């Protein structure tokens, strides 16, 4: 599905490029360990949820991580930096092209496939997560921000723990 009929192809291309850049910047923010910048990708009144394909399809609302405000995103980062105990590790996201389902009233609904490798401090690497981002993005402002990002993992199985957001 493309942007609403009548919109020029250039606008659609520009939006796709912009959302692609947004996703690339988001992945780099996490992978480069600049987690303090992660909440800035979201509006103040936002949602971020990590769930699994089966749970999502069944309409289950619980998330492995569930943030219902930018404050909860900040708390996730703070707890990770200052409270929780775990072995140091990093991610490497590979992010697919963004497909736009609909643009209406300054909000784009988009989906982007991704996979994330987890690299432990000792170099052990593992395919940690695959899935898709289901997004509602505020595209009315110059700085596009997520209203809602649902991280729908292909598998319910998570190796050991999930502390760095995906």
């Amino acid at each position, binding site marked *: 599905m493309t942007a609403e009929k009548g919109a020029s192809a250039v606008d659609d291309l520009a939006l796709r490029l912009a959302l692609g850049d947004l996703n690339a910047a988001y992945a780099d923010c996490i992978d480069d360990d600049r987690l303090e910048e992660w909440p800035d990708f979201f509006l103040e009144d936002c949602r971020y949820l*990590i*769930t*699994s394909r*089966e*749970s999502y399809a069944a309409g*289950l*609302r*619980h*998330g*492995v*991580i*569930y*943030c*219902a*405000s*930018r*404050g*909860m995103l*900040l*708390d*996730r980062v*703070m*707890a990770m930096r*200052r*409270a*929780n*105990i*775990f*072995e140091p590790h990093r991610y490497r996201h590979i992010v697919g092209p963004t497909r736009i389902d609909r643009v209406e009233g300054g909000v784009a609904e988009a989906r982007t496939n991704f996979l994330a490798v987890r690299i432990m401090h000792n170099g052990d690497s593992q395919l940690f997560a695959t899935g898709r981002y289901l997004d509602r993005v505020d595209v009315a402002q110059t700085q596009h921000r997520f209203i809602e990002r649902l991280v729908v993992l292909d598998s*319910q*199985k*998570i*190796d*050991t*723990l*999930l*502390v760095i957001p995906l």
Partner: protein
Amino acid sequence: MSVQDAGFDHGLTFPSNALSEVPFRVYTDPEQYRLEQERIFKGPTWNYLCLEAEIAEPGDWVATTIGEVAVIVARGPDGAVNAFVNRCAHRGNLLCLTEKGHGKEITCIYHGWSYDLAGKLTGVAFERGVKRQGGMPPEFRKDEHHLQRLRVAELSGLIFGSFDNNAPDLETYLGPVVAGGIRRVLNRPARIIGRSTQVLPNNWKLYFENTKDTYHASILHTFLTTFRINRLSQAGGINIDESGGNHFSFAKLDYAAEDAEYKAAQLRSDTDMKLQDNSVIESVDEYGDSISVQILTVFPNMVLQQIRNTIAVRVCRPRGVDRSELDWIHLGFAGDDEAMTERRLRQGNLVGPSGYIALEDGCVGGFVQRALQYNDADSGVVMMGGHDAESHSFRASEAAIRGFWKKYRALTGA
């Protein structure tokens, strides 16, 4: 042939009769792991199978495991819950290939043998041959090839199964106090609000012991001390059943208490941290008894937790001597309003694979497993709070862990 017939009538040697010494090889020895499958999971124990709600309608079934043994739990046409092995009587094929399903019968994909929902063999393809050639010999009786059935019992919407006719009934197995703890938390019909699974690089017992370990809570989970969610100085206690295997620990909510014990012990904590959004811990006293935390365990590997308003069943499934899978089944109740549902979802950040007060439990077992790699000759020391496995009102204790070993040793002959 059981391990007993093989002349191997007990597992590892424990260094003494003291419950407080546990040889490290219990976590690393492959023969001990095999013994556990026979003596514990297929022994006189009650093992969590599923929620009643998962097999609500006649014809519903789920495929799951007890230990590593594949089993099926089905709701028969008469409404009875049946459990039987997930193994075709013919050539041993796996009958149910997916996690759940629905049907009037269960048919093996290999040669079409079919069973009713009580595991009774009802159909054998080409039993009479084709054009009077082939077919089963005259002495073949379908009645002699029904699937092995398990005993089934239900409590508060939880379904349990046992391989062993010698196990006492479920209520006796749990004891009145632990059964009461289950009834307390699941006092109305539960429904599933989410699922997650952690793959843990460690022996299943390392996780299960952790759930019985009130000693570690405020030390490993620094989120707690920082935000004053659960401290040993709060009123609470540990209730352990007579066998030692089942328990629950609980704490009441009291934020007014001072933290002198922790300051004295100079434990790691960051007191200038503040949550931006408190809704992750905002909770209501939904049971009306001020108990904000109840962690209940059922031997061999099931947990029922109430942490504020998050309710979950956890099952730590053995998948090899150094690997396990921890299934989380997050629950709500049918009568929850939107506010309560939202509370459960937000507090869900406290538990699970990303749990603020649970994620360390995911990695610490793996750390132990690595430290024991080819270095498992000695024993762990489990004497916090004494040497017994008795109930008491303090939680700076490893009594419930000692209780686990008491039951474990009774079943494995150590």
